[in-house]
């Protein structure tokens, strides 16, 4: 018993240091990033159409958007009741360290009684008769340190275009959510 007490007394400082540092490290490594992501989701940066916003190595500008209403697969290859929403972005590097991750979705939160709905860009927009311009991309890639033109095509129920936004989730030095109004 005495030996145990003696051991504890000799190592008290080390034990106290470990007891403080372990949770502190866990908080810095896991807690802070989680809080940052949650904060970015709750407090997105709202961007109007045509406005340029700078974030973690890039300038983002929504240069245009269109909606093509479906008249049936036989008529224009877009189903009745659906719309093809196209959003074009200019993404220019600003010479600083670029972000590590980027994800983009179309989001609609027009009905507060239900969860938001999200659409991912179409991989093969040609299925719905849309031909993307040469050299454009249908995803955002922060790893490429060069100007990019994004042409994002979404298949949505008709009417979504008027209330939807395009959301870029960007992770690097910090986590941010850029929310572009289409209209």
């Amino acid at each position: 018993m005495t030996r145990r007490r003696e051991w504890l007394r000799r190592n008290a400082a080390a034990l106290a240091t470990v007891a403080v540092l372990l949770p502190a490290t866990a908080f810095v490594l896991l807690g802070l990033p989680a809080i940052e992501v949650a904060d970015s989701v709750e407090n997105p940066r709202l961007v109007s159409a045509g406005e340029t916003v700078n974030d973690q190595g890039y300038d983002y500008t929504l240069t245009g958007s269109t909606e093509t209403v479906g008249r049936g697969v036989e008529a224009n290859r877009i189903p009745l009741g659906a719309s093809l929403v196209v959003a074009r972005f200019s993404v220019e590097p600003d010479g600083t360290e670029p972000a590590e991750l980027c994800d983009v979705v179309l989001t609609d939160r027009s009905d507060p009684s239900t969860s938001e709905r999200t659409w991912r860009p179409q991989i093969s927009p040609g299925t719905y008769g849309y031909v993307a311009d040469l050299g454009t991309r249908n995803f955002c890639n922060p790893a490429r340190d060069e100007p990019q033109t994004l042409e994002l095509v979404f298949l949505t129920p008709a009417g979504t275009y008027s209330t939807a936004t395009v959301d870029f989730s960007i992770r690097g030095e910090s986590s941010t959510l850029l929310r572009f109004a289409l209209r």
Partner: protein
Amino acid sequence: MNRLVRVLTVAGLLAVGGVAIATAPSDDTIVAPFLVRGEIGKPIGSRLATVVVSDVGVARELDLSYAYDPDFGEPAPDTASAGVWIVVSLDVTATYTSIDFGNAEVRIAGVRYRASTVLPDPDLPTFAFDPGVTVRGSIVFELPADAVRSAGAENADLVFLPRLVPALDTVATVRVDLRTLPVDDVAVVEGAHAVDGRAGRDG
């Protein structure tokens, strides 16, 4: 005496620990999705999607003419199976976010058969379902011929799992009696295509 008590205590604790480990559910079981069961021809609503299975058939060969046009010199590949194909025709409407059915499976008496990757693009298992837009198509499963006549095949489950299997979420499931289905020579497979955007917010 003290030593005997200690030894017995340690042995008891080890035995309890062993029983706990042996009987504990696996991590996969703990977070496994909940199956929402429904019938052929009726909407089955899960949180992720609404599914309507219109038909289930069994055949020895697949007709993939949706992807190959012989008039343009595109002979379809040989899909004659040493076993049988289960061909499931369905409509899917995603609810909140884009999903797929990349891990759809048939379960017969505990044996799981994954959806075949034989279908050419645009095929339903790799197709992304967008919220509010109904997609129609087929999923096929290749099984040993005797599997559809085996014990348990009368209660086969078609489980429509996404590629990223959702933890503790609901997943649409249809129970079918494969033993009563005739084995056709050929079954027509329908490529995946969006058919309607009027499904509304709840799919």
